[in-house]
């Protein structure tokens, strides 16, 4: 009986505030025309509903827990001024259903359509953010969700582009199902830990589709990165899991599908690297497991610099890449096993599924072009074939221990979705 009473009291305590929560409506024929005034009048956890229309209002400060809903995608326009549209300075703020546009460029301030300055347990979802310098900008945010936003810029001067989603110091974030295009980075994370980034589409960004700096224990999966300066850059970070992503059409002198720089203890599995200048460039990458990925039609599939140690390259498909593995060192401190290499021409006389001779994926010409890029001109020439042949008989330049002892005779059935 006593438990029952306690339960009833608890339940009613939980129900009462929500019964009291009001909805304040903003619109031409409503009690509020100015969004900021509705926010000022609102109590904690009230809802502010904004009717359809065009609002030339900006610098709207949300300083208490509130639910802001746009009905029929009302438009907020900054008219290319150096101002922000929403500035969040409280916990538990939800912003959804708005069209935010034309936040101006400032070289001194990182202006964003929605800027969160210190906030926890908030959510930004279902918004369209068009032609804004920065889209969503989080500072010191934890337990935040950024979901299903469409953030697109058409910066004519490429260098004046900010990032679509930018996080400076965050923890426990979820960034999912967003479409990001035409910015400097699609998603930029600096000092961000314990976060999940999945099902985003990031394309035609000037620098990277996704960019980690000084971030640990994060995971990104099932994203698509195409036609960016480079697909993803993971730098100075630890324990990043990268699974089931597509990296495609990242072409150009400084382009990679995935750039690894000073990172350790991660996993790269089940990804597709298709038509990139370099599939993965690893510099100072240690103890990373690279398995069950598909590398197709890249200039170089995997460029593993000599300062990368103890990485495991297992059961990947290397299909029709110009160069399979490139390195700048004569030593090899990484392990390659049971990959399928379309360049392998050995036999499998004992029918165990792997070739009888080990395979050396680094060829001489790859080593030469690594040092003299202009030599690419000689690709497929008779002279180079001759060199390759003699190097195979008397190996001197390629790393002697970089071999796959069990090269697969058949590609793994990872494709193709």
């Amino acid at each position, binding site marked *: 009986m006593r438990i029952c009473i306690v339960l009833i009291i608890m339940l009613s305590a939980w129900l009462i505030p929500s019964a009291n929560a009001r909805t304040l409506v903003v619109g031409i024929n409503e009690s509020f025309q100015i969004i900021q005034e509705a926010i000022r009048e609102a109590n904690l956890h009230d809802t502010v509903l904004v009717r359809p229309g065009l609002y030339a209002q900006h610098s709207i400060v949300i300083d208490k827990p509130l639910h802001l809903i746009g009905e029929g995608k009302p438009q907020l326009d900054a008219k290319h001024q150096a101002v922000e549209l929403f500035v969040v300075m409280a916990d538990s703020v939800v912003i959804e259903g708005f069209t935010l546009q034309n936040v101006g460029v400032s*070289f001194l301030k*990182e202006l964003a359509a929605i800027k969160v300055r210190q906030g926890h347990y908030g959510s930004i979802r279902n918004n369209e953010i068009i032609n804004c310098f920065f889209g969503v900008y989080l500072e010191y945010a934890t337990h935040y969700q950024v979901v299903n936003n469409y953030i697109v810029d058409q910066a004519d001067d*490429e*260098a*004046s*582009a900010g990032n679509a989603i930018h996080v*400076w110091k965050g923890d426990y974030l979820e960034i999912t199902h967003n479409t990001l295009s035409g910015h*400097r*980075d699609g998603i930029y994370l*600096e000092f961000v830990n314990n976060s999940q980034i999945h099902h985003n589409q990031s394309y035609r960004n*000037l*620098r*990277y589709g996704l960019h980690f*700096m*000084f971030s640990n224990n994060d995971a990104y999966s099932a994203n698509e990165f195409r036609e960016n*300066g*480079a697909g993803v*850059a993971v*730098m*100075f970070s630890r324990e990043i899991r990268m699974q089931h992503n597509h990296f495609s059409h990242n072409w*150009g*002198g*400084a382009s990679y599908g995935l*750039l690894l*720089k000073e990172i350790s203890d991660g996993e790269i599995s089940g990804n597709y690297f298709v038509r990139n200048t370099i599939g993965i*460039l690893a*510099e100072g990458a240690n103890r990373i497991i690279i398995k069950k990925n598909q590398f197709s039609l890249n200039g170089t599939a995997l460029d593993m610099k000599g300062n990368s140690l103890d990485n495991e390259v297992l059961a990947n498909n290397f299909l029709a890449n110009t160069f399979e593995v490139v390195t700048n060192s004569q030593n090899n401190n990484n392990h390659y096993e049971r990959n399928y290499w379309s360049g392998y021409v050995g036999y499998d006389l004992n029918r165990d599924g792997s070739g009888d001779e080990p395979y050396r994926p680094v060829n001489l010409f790859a080593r030469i072009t690594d040092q003299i890029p202009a030599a690419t001109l000689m690709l497929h020439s008779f002279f180079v074939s001759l060199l390759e042949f003699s190097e195979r008989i008397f190996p001197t330049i390629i790393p002697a221990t970089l071999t796959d002892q069990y090269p697969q005779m058949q590609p793994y059935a990872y494709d193709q979705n």
Partner: protein
Amino acid sequence: MIGIIVGLLASCQTEPEPIAFGKDQCHYCKMSIADPKFGAELITDKGRIYKYDATECVVNQLAEESTRYQMLLAVAHNNPKQLYPMDSLVFVISPEFRSPMGANLAAFYRPTTQDLPSNTQLLSWNEVRLLLKNRK
């Protein structure tokens, strides 16, 4: 005759090259150079040009290998995209300036008080090098 020799000598001096933001790649950290408020350039004795996305990358490069150079330049934060000789710049390390490689280092050409946060300490190029080297 002397004119020709002088002309030849002068041609050994390489002119600085503007950074193509969004296209050039940092020689040290391999990132694409994209933030027009930051960036630097080193011209070697032989006239080869290396570009950087942040001044801290030049510091790191010079700490790792003793590259001989004829000129060092950096982008001024208060005049984006523009390269100035390193000696003509002053530097500020402050969380207000989020430089691409995390050193919070910005370079200024003749800054006004509006450009800078209050109570900032202005550093010379040599002081920056010493400070960052000790931090590592």
